[in-house]
């Protein structure tokens, strides 16, 4: 182990103490966080639905996801077809067409939502499913990443992620392609 020699070299070479600034706070008077959030979800390639516009949970599936057969849900209000008791290994989720998970928080400035493993059944679910539906309480939207990190504890669960829109890449000639390795579409269902 090189730990001691590395730390000794760093102690020898690191500069004299510099101050740590306080985390910045930016007040944004008059900003409509809900409207801004919806706009940014679209900007990052996602969609927004309002639960109040759905006649019933069935409307969600018949109208918006008519072709998706295998649905893995962790939201009791929108039950899926996958029986969680039968999922022994994350690889069993490989055939999921649609994943439905709830998010704790939305961020207006970039359309991201905070999803933890506690809401996923398994960590891989939001990434391996072909399509992703995020259920979010519209009162849980904060203006920016500073307030987002004030509102959560990143080590509360073993894994958590901010997810902003569907998976994408521009690695071939800077042409934007939606649906790289993760979800091909992302919809935020606000209630």
């Amino acid at each position, binding site marked *: 182990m090189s730990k001691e020699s*590395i730390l000794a070299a760093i102690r020898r070479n690191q500069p004299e103490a*510099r101050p740590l*600034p306080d*985390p910045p706070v930016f007040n944004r008077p008059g900003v409509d966080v809900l409207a801004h959030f919806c706009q940014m979800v679209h900007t990052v390639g996602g969609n927004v639905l309002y639960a109040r516009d759905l006649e019933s949970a069935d409307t969600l599936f018949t109208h918006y996801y008519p072709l998706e057969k295998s649905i893995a849900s962790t939201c009791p209000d929108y039950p899926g077809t996958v029986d969680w008791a039968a999922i022994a290994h994350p690889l069993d989720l490989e055939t999921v067409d649609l994943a439905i998970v709830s998010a704790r928080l939305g961020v207006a400035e970039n359309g991201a939502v905070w999803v933890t493993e506690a809401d996923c059944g398994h960590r891989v679910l939001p990434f391996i499913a072909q399509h992703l539906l995020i259920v979010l309480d519209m009162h849980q939207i904060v203006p920016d990443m500073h307030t987002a990190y004030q509102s959560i504890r990143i080590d509360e669960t073993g894994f958590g992620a*901010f997810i*902003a829109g569907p998976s*994408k890449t521009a*690695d071939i000639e*800077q042409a934007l392609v939606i649906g*790289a390795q993760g979800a091909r579409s992302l919809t935020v269902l606000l209630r």
Partner: protein
Amino acid sequence: MQHAQKAAHFIADEARTDWHDEALWFVRHKRDLAANSIPEWESLRECASQIKDHTLSNLANYLEQFEANARANGVHVHWAADGAEHNQIVWDILRRHQVKRLVKSKSMLTEECGLNDFLEQQGVEVTDTDLGERIIQLRDEPPSHIVLPAIHLKKEEVGALFHEKLHTEKGVSDPKYLTEAARGHLRARFIAAEAALTGVNFGIAETGGVVVCTNEGNADMGIHLASLQIHSMGLEKLIPRQADLGVFTRLLARSGTGQPVTVYTSHHHRPKPGGEMHIILVDNGRSAHLGRKDFRNGLKCIRCGACMNTCPIYRRSGGHSYGVLIPGPIGSILSPGFDLAKNSDLPFASTLCGSCSDVCPVKIDIHQQLYKWRQIVAQEGELPPVKKWGMAAAGNILASSRRYTFFGKAARIALDKLPRFLVYNSLNTWGKRRELPQAPRESFSEWYQKNKGGKRV
């Protein structure tokens, strides 16, 4: 071969040079739009710079705090003095778990350590899973950019490569079609892999966790499907607090690609149930660089790539012309610290225009460091003969007003009277691909004397 020679080869194809230049300028433009949409942008940059300054000044304590918190989270922490030790640690972990197939997510650090070659020699199948990285892995070449590894390739070249390696339709180069083909190919690799390895964007001392930022979701697919996860992290990736992520996640993607945030900002703190999680802290020259007063700022880099996208030299010479893993302005100030003799030409691969420093989200004084490296290169006797004697001659002429007046006049006459072949030849690099300006008839000094009747100045 030196940067200038490789760059000459690159720009020989003029249309392709223009295309490369414009592709990167497009990314730079998107960065401007994203930065300008944030009124507090400049104060964010200043804050990020101060957080990194502070962290570097207290790095040893933060590393110890990070390690203690990670261990308390059930994570195995390793320390590697150099690339060889890093690779050995990875191999020991893989061997213990009898891993035959490893999926990797984009990591410049493992490129730096030469991990892929090493593991392949041990019989491990390594798959890079970021689309751009997979493309260059299949082509068996290094990345040409730290964020856009295949930016030097045209879609037709990717189409031909995929036809050969992934059996896509011949002659088809639609990016959507090619990306879909890669998706299928990589899904099979994710499912078959027994272990996943990623780089790290940020390590948080306060919580002992790591943050990995991607757009494709490849890092998460790999990590969550395999029971064994390994994160290789350069020492300088550390930040003190969870709250500091608020600053850096706002700057990183906006600076790199002009996105408001990366699609996935994943926080890993504990292994999955039944799984194992390792973090390898890698020095490989970083602690030594910390001791170089004029250059330690380079360790603040968060690898966004903005300095490359804006650099007029990078855009017109391509990443491969630098001959080092991290090209562009940031690479040109980091590489001489690792090997001055080998990389002594890189501080000269710049116009010193300062655009790199202007876009840097953590305010690294890149162009000033380039200038300082030039002086060290000269002091250490690493200048090529043309520059060495040229600078000595120029110094001699500029030190004396009589010699300056004489040679100024000689140059004006030469430019005016000499036949072209004597002015535009291989000895005069200033005459390559450009017309020299028309020489004025007289110097300012002569003009002043004539018109103002003053003393000779």
